[in-house]
Every structure is written in structure tokens, then in C-alpha cells.
């Protein structure tokens, strides 16, 4: 694809291509038609594909999810948009009790090729329920695949791969990066669940996904000035996790630091730290550290900067890891 695309535009193009490629692909959600979604990710799609394929639904997330499951049973490939992270919970029962388990309960006789797109995480100065990072709930649920791109290339290709998957995929879009631009290559390069080393380094490995990849890259650049060489791995997939890639990196650097916006307690970092400790124990120079949110509701926007991991908090963890 020629030129630089924003993540938002890359997602829009991926949806367009998916609608073109497969007449069974449908988009469903609140305000995704004329408005193009509150983030304009579906901009122009209803006009081009009609309102029977790009469907403005009633304001009911459980309804959206439950009917998407029914459509999938009937052979359709629904791509659901949840307007904001905090509004997926009314659909949570349909996701964890129905969507995630249907294939298994039917002993493989039915498939659930449903993609659930959710703009997630904070940093946009929003009111309550518009800044949450709830990936752990989904990753904790067997039957769901969970991914989160961090750049335009991955946004485009991972969304296409997610839609093509015959399993349900929770597709977490880092909303504060929607307007970040990047090159979108001509092929995916990686399968949906592979991690990518986005910066090579020798002293420690920063592991991040979605909105925090950029923060980690900035931290690595800043650390370089202090003569520290940090590797940054973009996890991309939260279930399954590409542990082989992480293991290789952490064995090489001897230190791992997981960074996410979600609260640290019982977050992705807990699982990553535990598994990496098991896999890399004799190579570790320090415990695998975690940088993330606190065990508290996402705060009002005027203090969200204190809640969100930033360059300083990442570098602080790097200092601690190197001090061991």
C-alpha cells in the first residue's frame, strides 16, 4: 500500500478489503453506518457496501454479540465494533460463556469466526469507561484469541488475519495511537500470533503491546543516550503468546520488563513473568519486572498521566533491573 497510513485508516482499509473478499463478512455496531463509528474506522463503508453489510445495530452490546454468534452459526463472518472498552461488559456473558465455548461444546461441528474490535486503553483525556485495558479478562478465557496491533502495518494485516480466522478474535485497538502514521507493507510478514522484535538490544528486553510499544521505543532511545542497550519486543498477540520469541530475547539480554497500561495485579505481566522465569531461570540476571497501572479504577483524566506508564516509569524499572 502506497504511502503512510494512520492506524485508523489502515483498519478502515482492512475492513474494506475483507468486505470485498468475502460476501459473508458483515460489520455490526453502534453508529458505524453514516457516522463511520465514533473513531471513523468504518468511514464510508456503509455507503459502499450497503446497510445490510455494514449494520447500525440497536444500542445493546449483549444483543450485538449474541446475534453475531447466531449469524456465525448461519455461516456469516461478523466483525463487531464495540464503541469503547468500557462498554463491552454488557456483552461479556455472550463472549465468555457463549462465543468462547461454542466450538468446543459442539465438538468442533460449528465455528465462530467472529472478530470483536474494541478501541481500548487510555491517554485521550476521556471521561469514565472510555480508557480501560481489560485484555486480561479475555486472555484468561480459553477459546478466545486476543491480539493488539501497535502500528499501521500490523493494524491492517492483523485485522485481515483476525477476520479470516475461524476462531473468535478479540481485536484490541490502541485508541490513542489511531492517528499515528506508518508504512503498510505488501504482505503481513508474520502470522497473527507471532511477536516482533522492534528494536534490538543487549542489556534488557522491554515487552509491550498496543499503546505501550511506542513508549518502550522512546524509553529505549533515551536509554541509549545513557549507554544502555534495550531490546523492545512487540508482543502483538496476547493469546496465544509467542513465548519462544520472548524466551530467545530474554535469554540473550538476561532481563525482562513487561509494560502495559492495565493494572499490574493479575495482569498479562504476571503470566509473562511467571512463564519467562520458568523458561529462562538460569539466564536471568534479575526478576522479570512489571510496569503498569495500579489496583484502582482508571482515574479521572486530569491525573491519568500518573496512572499510565511513561518513559520515566519504564526507565525506572530498567534501572531496578540493571541494579540487581
Amino acid at each position, binding site marked *: 500500500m502506497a504511502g503512510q497510513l494512520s492506524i485508523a485508516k489502515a483498519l478502515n482499509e482492512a475492513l474494506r478489503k475483507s468486505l470485498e473478499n468475502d460476501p459473508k463478512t458483515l460489520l455490526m455496531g453502534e453508529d458505524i*453506518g453514516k*457516522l463511520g463509528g465514533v473513531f471513523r474506522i468504518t468511514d464510508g463503508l456503509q455507503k459502499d457496501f450497503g446497510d445490510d453489510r455494514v449494520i*447500525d445495530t440497536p*444500542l445493546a452490546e449483549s*444483543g450485538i454479540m449474541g446475534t453475531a454468534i447466531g449469524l456465525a452459526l448461519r455461516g456469516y463472518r461478523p466483525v463487531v465494533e464495540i464503541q469503547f472498552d468500557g462498554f463491552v461488559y*454488557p456483552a461479556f456473558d455472550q463472549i465468555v460463556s457463549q462465543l468462547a465455548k461454542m466450538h468446543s461444546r459442539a465438538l468442533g461441528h460449528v465455528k465462530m469466526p467472529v472478530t470483536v474490535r474494541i478501541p481500548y486503553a487510555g491517554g485521550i483525556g476521556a471521561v469514565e469507561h472510555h480508557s480501560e485495558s481489560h485484555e486480561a479478562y479475555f486472555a484468561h478465557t480459553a477459546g478466545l484469541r486476543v491480539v493488539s496491533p501497535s502500528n499501521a502495518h500490523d493494524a491492517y494485516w492483523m485485522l485481515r488475519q483476525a477476520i479470516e480466522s475461524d476462531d473468535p478474535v478479540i481485536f484490541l485497538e490502541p485508541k490513542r495511537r489511531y492517528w499515528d502514521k506508518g508504512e503498510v507493507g505488501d504482505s503481513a510478514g508474520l502470522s497473527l500470533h507471532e511477536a516482533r522484535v522492534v528494536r534490538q538490544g543487549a542489556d534488557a528486553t522491554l515487552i509491550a503491546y498496543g499503546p505501550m510499544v511506542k513508549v518502550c521505543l522512546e524509553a529505549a532511545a533515551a536509554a541509549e543516550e545513557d549507554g544502555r542497550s534495550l531490546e523492545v519486543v512487540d508482543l502483538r498477540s496476547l493469546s496465544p503468546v509467542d513465548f519462544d520469541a520472548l524466551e530467545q530475547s530474554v535469554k540473550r539480554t538476561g532481563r525482562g520488563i513487561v509494560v502495559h497500561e492495565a493494572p499490574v495485579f493479575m495482569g498479562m505481566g504476571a503470566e509473562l513473568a511467571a512463564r519467562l522465569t520458568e523458561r529462562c531461570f538460569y539466564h536471568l540476571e534479575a526478576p522479570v519486572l512489571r510496569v503498569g497501572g*495500579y*489496583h484502582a479504577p482508571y482515574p*479521572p483524566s486530569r491525573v491519568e498521566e500518573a496512572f499510565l506508564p511513561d518513559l520515566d516509569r519504564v526507565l525506572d524499572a530498567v534501572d531496578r533491573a540493571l541494579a540487581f
Partner: protein
Amino acid sequence: MTVKSTARARKKAAPGVPDNLRNKGKDAQPELVQLLTPEGERVENPEFPLVITPEELRALYRDLVLVRRFDAEATSLQRQGELGLWASLLGQEAAQVGSGRAMRPGDYAFPTYREHGVAWCRDVDPLNLLGMFRGVNHGGWDPNEKNFHLYTIVIGAQTLHATGYAMGITKDGTDDAVIAYFGDGASSQGDVSEAFTFASVYNSPVVFFCQNNQWAISEPTTVQTRIPLYRRALGFGFPGVRVDGNDVLACLAVTRWALDHARSGNGPVLIEAFTYRMGAHTTSDDPTRYRPTEETEAWKAKDPITRLKAYLDREGLADEAFFAGIEAESEELGLRVREGVRSMPDPDPTLIFDHVYAEPHALVEEERAEYEAYAASFEGGENN
């Protein structure tokens, strides 16, 4: 008599269903309760009589004007960067003031995020409402102080809270009642249907007050329903009424009736206030993408304030001095709101750890200490 006509006759009789509860089908013209026409003419409705003094009429006018002023001020404060977001109530003043003034002091309101006019009637300081839109708190007021619950952003959730609160009133045996506010879009949420069911089977003293402002962000009401919303109540077994939501007198009379109906042990009522969202959904929204300006123009002619003013003028119920006085008060309010917002202090980040639990929690305390030590390490730096 042929079999066919018998069948038709039987259908017509529909035994057991009182006429007002019969589903009239989607083509039947909905009945709209109106006591003040858009031109400002007083009309009577025998089912909803309203005895009101000139003084009370002037007080309603004052409410409408001040609420609109507050709202306009908030919109411009958002434009100036003082608020992160604002959800304007422009056009819905009568629905909110009429229903808000129908409440007794012991009644309780459960708002959405747009009920600034109801908050006004409950005597909640307008500045309190702005905290969450500025991003200094998530609500912050004590709901029990004014019997006005926190704003609820998750669509429909508060209708269940209102119902539970009403169930508690029944258990306590008092004659208070509750109003649950929600929108046309919210009517699709499962929570709202569940609230209707609970309120109905427990005969709870709750009035479901739906402001049908014709839009749920970009979705017109036709995306949510095939029948007028007030008729949904019939299926749940309680009365539904559609009222002209731009007519403050009708909203007052109908809500007063509904609250009394509920508080006297007759169970819930659904009121559909038929109104219009004159502005954008919020300051982040761009309605030119989805709705025709002619529609908005047409609703301008039904403005709730213009019609009450026309009535007051025509009947000679208020003089120039009164209107000038309201104007002055409105300026004062605007000033107070502007200055109040601009001088709202930014909270200390440690508020993150406040009130997470009612009782001490080891992890929260540990993380608070960690945060404080970390922040202190920037002594003299950017965090201080």
C-alpha cells in the same frame, strides 16, 4: 354470521385487555399529552389537570432559562479547553425541569449524563456536575445529600439501580418514589427491559422517564424500535404515556401524576417525553454527518422556552422587570460557572488510591506508598 367475521369480531373484543392497554399497532397515531402548544396556548387535558399559579409559572420559566444558560456556558468552557467533554441538554430543558419539579424532596432521581436540568431542580451545585467533564473526578457528589444519584455513563445501568432503590422504599413502607432517566437509545439495552420486569413484578414505586430526543448519537429512533416507546410498558404490565417533552407544563403534570401513581402502591409508569436533541450528542460529535439540518430547524419552532414566554406574555403573567431580573441572574450564573471551573484545582494524583475500598486493602496501600516514593524521587524535577 360467517366464521370469518366471527374471528374478526373476536379479535376486536380482545377480552381482558383494557382499552388503554391495547396494542394499537404501529400505524395508530400515538397520543401526545400537551398542555401548552408550541405557540404558547394553554390547552386542557382532562386526564392530566394542572392547577398552577402565576408565581409557579414564573419559577418554571426561570428554571428553564438558567438551565439553558448553564448548559451554554459549559459548552463554551469545553471549547476553551476547560472541560474535556460536555453533553448538552439543549432542547430538553422542559422535559428535565418539568419532571424534576414534579419530585418531592424525599423522591430520588437516577440520571444519565445529560440530566443537568434535573440536577438543577434537585439543587445540586452546577459546578459539581462539571468536575467529571473537566476530568477531576468521576462524579464526586454525595448522591444521598440531594437524592440525586451520580451520572451514569454506561447506557441503561441506572434503571436497575433505580428499581432496586424503589424496591427498598416498598420494604421501608414510605411513600417516596423514584425516577429513572434514560434515553431512546437506552431503551434497547437488556438492563432497561430487566428493570421494567423487576419494577413490574415487585410493583415498585419507580417512574421510568425516557427522553426520546430522536437520536442516540447518529442512530435515529427507528434503529431502536418499531412502536412508540411508551407502548413498550404495556407488554410489561404497567401504563405508558407519551408527553410533549418540550412542554414544561405537560411534563410537570404527567410526572406528578406518575409519581403519585407509583407512591400510592400502583407500581411503575413509563413516560416517554417526546423531545429533541438540538445540539450535537456531545462536544466530540459532528451531527452534520448524519442528520438533516431541516429536521433541527423544524424542532426550533417547538422550543420549550419560547412557548412558555409566549404564554406568560399573552396572559400578562410577567412584566419587563421580571424578564430583566432573570437575564441578570443568568449573567451571574454564567460568571459563577466560568470562574468556578477555571479555578477548580487539579487533584493530587494520589486520589487514584482514595476510596478504592471502604476498608483498608493491603495492595492499594502498598501501591500508594510505592507511588509516593516514586513521585518523591523527582524532587525539584517535573513532578514537583
